[in-house]
């Protein structure tokens, strides 16, 4: 974990036990079909989470919540044999978005902006950040053992690519925040 300012630490501890950030809770919320509980939890945490762009943080968490609609796409949802999407895949993508966004906010006092979280092929899920100065695409395969891949580019011709590996990627956060 990166070092964080003391005034953020208190909220950081709260976040670590926040039900929203728990995969178990997210699954419970979905199975119970109590989406309003998930949304309420996210909104209630937002004002308590630091000062680095509350509006942005709310927009990010709202985007993550809306992306749960991907899970409604079951096998053959298009009538042409397309594969459906599962909670584990979505959770990995959601966790990554929240982790990197929080890291950018806490360590750089910057916002990564609101990513697009979208269904891709073979049951995989994409996360894409787009700004005027940088774009980054991360793909989370259905099989978690395969590992996520990423590719990014900027208008100057700079690129970044590879396997995601570790859950936290401060280098990718730096890539996105440096160029905004």
């Amino acid at each position, binding site marked *: 974990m990166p070092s964080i300012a003391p005034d953020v630490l208190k909220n950081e501890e709260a976040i670590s036990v926040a039900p929203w950030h728990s995969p178990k809770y997210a699954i419970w919320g979905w199975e119970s079909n109590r989406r309003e509980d998930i949304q309420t939890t996210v909104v209630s945490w937002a004002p308590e989470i630091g000062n680095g762009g509350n509006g942005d943080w709310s927009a990010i968490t709202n985007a993550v919540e*809306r*992306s749960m*609609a*991907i899970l409604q*796409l079951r096998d053959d*949802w*298009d*009538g*042409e*044999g*397309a594969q459906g999407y599962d909670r584990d895949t979505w959770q990995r993508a959601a966790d990554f978005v929240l982790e990197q966004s929080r890291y950018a906010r806490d360590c750089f006092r910057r916002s990564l902006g609101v990513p*697009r979280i*979208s*269904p*891709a*092929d073979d049951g*995989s*899920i*994409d996360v*894409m950040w787009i700004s005027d100065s940088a*774009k980054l*695409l*991360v*793909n989370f*395969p259905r099989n978690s053992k*395969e*590992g996520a*891949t*990423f*590719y*990014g*580019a900027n208008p100057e011709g700079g690129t970044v*690519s*590879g*396997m995601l590996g570790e859950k936290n990627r401060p280098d990718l956060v730096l890539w996105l925040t440096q160029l905004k």
Partner: protein
Amino acid sequence: MADAAEVVKWESEQIPDPAELYMRVHTGQLPDGVLHPGVFKEQGDYLSVDWEKYSTKEESRRRAKEPGKIGIVTLIAGTVRAIEDLRVEHEPIPLNRAHSGIKGITIPDGNAAKIRKTKIRFKLFEYFHTFSLAPPEAV
């Protein structure tokens, strides 16, 4: 007299670089109504498209099972070919002379191939990210 059930076999042709290719996108792929790299989705080992020489955008849409939920994204053959080593090949089928495929997105073997695929989808989206024919039904 020709047999009414005789299947027409079209000859494959070379698709020129300036040619337009029509790709169908189902609105089910668009949870928030916006195009994204995931719409470049293969069926088997190729990305299915229709060649403009033998199809209009509307005709391409009507070939889908749910035409009311289909939008069309127009790709340019030469631009596609310039991405890594993708191939654009005309492969007519009896019911669709325009049928063609973009091949080479997925290749076997290892992490490098997976990273390459993500790069390809990134670039396809960078070049082609708007509907040339919007879905008739609101997302």
